[in-house]
């Protein structure tokens, strides 16, 4: 494998961080301890981590309503993320943003966005800035299969193509937009083929294979840095949990079968990584276990930090609108 041991351990650490963080969010939302909409990404960890591991710290990303994983993969601090979701002053957005709007601009994260497809032109513009400033930075743009039916997707791919912008469009195809199967509302089986219409490369990628995602992203980033323009990567994956935590309370009927969920759980991206590195002899079980344990502890500590953090004062509602 062309990926070194240290990087693999880092990928493994981040996937566990995401898994634990999301599980915690799910439990705390279910328990009523945290409010709002929680869109968790359990099962989709390999896409976030595979992409961000192939980026440089100065590269940028745009994220979505299902964005916790992207943030963690780009280096986000789980304590400040958790505090934000608790609405605390120590959170990334001082309690003003919430789950759908966590961001760390110092890490090149240009925001999670609660508007489906809203991040796509922003990533495109971020790539324009990098191109004009000749910084060599690339921007990776995460969005769902549902977002690929918004105008912003089509308009952005066209623009990035004609201007040869250093942007990588990452469509996380998890099979559903809310409760509607992708196939019911999408003209093509593979969203990657839409790249053809904009004369850019498009690839279908196994989104549950962190190494495959990493390799595709590395190639796309190299192309982007070489001035060859954008790439569309469609990462096929699956969300194990509902569209939103607690959806059982308000949806009638089922939109997917237990068997389908079980089939995807059997393709767990974390276990797939473990198997690969144990079989190749690159890492030992206890090395992995130690990292997994650390990730659990980090998330527990994040919850303690969030609980103990102060609430913002009501007057802070009027701060930060202007410089």
């Amino acid at each position, binding site marked *: 494998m062309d990926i070194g041991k240290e990087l693999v351990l880092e990928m493994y650490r981040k996937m566990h961080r995401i898994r634990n963080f999301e599980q915690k969010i799910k439990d705390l939302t279910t328990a009523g301890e945290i409010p709002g909409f929680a869109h968790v990404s359990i099962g989709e960890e390999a896409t976030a981590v595979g992409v961000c591991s192939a980026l440089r710290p100065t590269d940028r990303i745009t994220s979505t309503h299902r964005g916790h994983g992207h943030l963690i993969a780009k280096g986000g601090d789980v304590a400040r993320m958790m505090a934000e979701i608790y609405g605390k002053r120590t959170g990334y957005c001082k309690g003003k943003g919430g789950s759908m709007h966590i961001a760390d601009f110092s890490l090149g994260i240009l925001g999670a966005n609660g508007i489906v497809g809203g991040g796509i032109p922003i990533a495109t513009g971020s790539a324009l800035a990098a191109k004009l400033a000749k910084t060599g930075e690339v921007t990776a743009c995460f969005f769902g299969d549902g977002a690929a039916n918004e105008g912003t997707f089509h308009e952005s791919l066209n623009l990035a193509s004609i201007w040869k912008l250093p942007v990588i469009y990452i469509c996380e195809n998890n099979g559903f937009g809310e409760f509607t199967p992708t196939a019911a509302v999408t003209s093509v089986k593979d969203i990657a083929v839409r790249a053809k219409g904009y004369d850019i490369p498009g690839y279908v990628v196994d989104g549950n294979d962190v190494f495959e995602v990493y390799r595709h992203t590395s190639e796309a980033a190299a192309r982007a840095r070489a001035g060859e323009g954008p790439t569309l990567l469609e990462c096929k994956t699956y969300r194990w949990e509902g569209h939103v935590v607690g959806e059982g309370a308000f949806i009638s009927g089922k*939109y997917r079968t237990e068997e389908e969920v079980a089939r995807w759980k059997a393709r767990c991206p974390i276990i797939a990584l473990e198997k690969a590195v144990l079989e190749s002899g690159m890492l030992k079980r206890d090395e992995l276990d130690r990292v997994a344990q650390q990730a659990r502890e980090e998330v527990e500590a994040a919850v303690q930090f969030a609980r103990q953090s102060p609430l*913002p004062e*009501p007057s802070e*509602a009027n701060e930060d609108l202007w410089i």
Partner: protein
Amino acid sequence: MALITYREALNQALREELDRDERVFIMGEEVGYFGGAFKVTDGLIATYGEKRVRDTPISELTIVGAGVGAAMGGLRPVVELMTINFALLAIDQIVNTAAKARYMFGGQTKVPLVIRAPQGGGHQLGAQHSQSLEAYFVHCPGIRVALPATAADAKGMLKYAIRQEDPVMFLEHESLYGMKGEVPEDEDYLVPFGQAKVVREGKDVTIIAYSKTVHDALIAADLLENQGTDAEVIDLRTLNPLDIATVLESVRKTARAVVVYEGWLTGGAGAEVAAQIYQAAFDDLDAPIQRVASADVPMPYNRHLEAAALPSPDKIVRAVERIS
């Protein structure tokens, strides 16, 4: 009369109009098999089928634009936007076509399109999912803007909207869906637009509200009664057309007015109401008109900050106290 929720009242209105007129159809995200994000279209696909209850891709601009075209083509579409926040993706078709077509084409065409959308804050959904955007549409000539506050109005106004020959923005408040009220069962129960309603009579001050703020105003009126102030509460029901006559009649009696709305204070629909009162009844006022609205900031997520930003019964009471 039947005691049903605002949500059920809307569902009934849709059923009755689907039954009454085969040109009526529904389209939007999740409106079919999942019965709508707020369950307003629950069960309709089972009765009316995929032809008349159409699940769409996530493509707001095109959903609304297709509604315009379908209306021009002779149908009577009821388009659901999952929430008003996403109407901002569709505002081009709303403002540049739906609202203008009849006029711009010299009366040759019409756009009998209803765009339904839930709106409002208070659920800690943050800046992009908590907005009240009625002012955007009130500003634009050529489109009606309706905001029912009760289950009965929800039904009667939606039925009326669907029977209109012109486009309607039909804005429902997310906090009202579960609220129950007595609703007439008559299939021709219609609540015509442009008729504000005095929902509480009083002589000391007029509180003018619409949508959820009507309920805030009623709570405020009860609190004020304890301190000896007798408030009249008016539910505007539609902002276009605006029934200013009912408002003026009340203000001439009470000589004091407070306008309450959940949109941002600046440029909000209530500012227009205040301006019209000043213009027509300046001499009848004993005190400056007060406005109670959302603070001029994107909606913050934290519960305390959100409460600080939203209008509330307490804030209405304080506004009345300022001019009493």
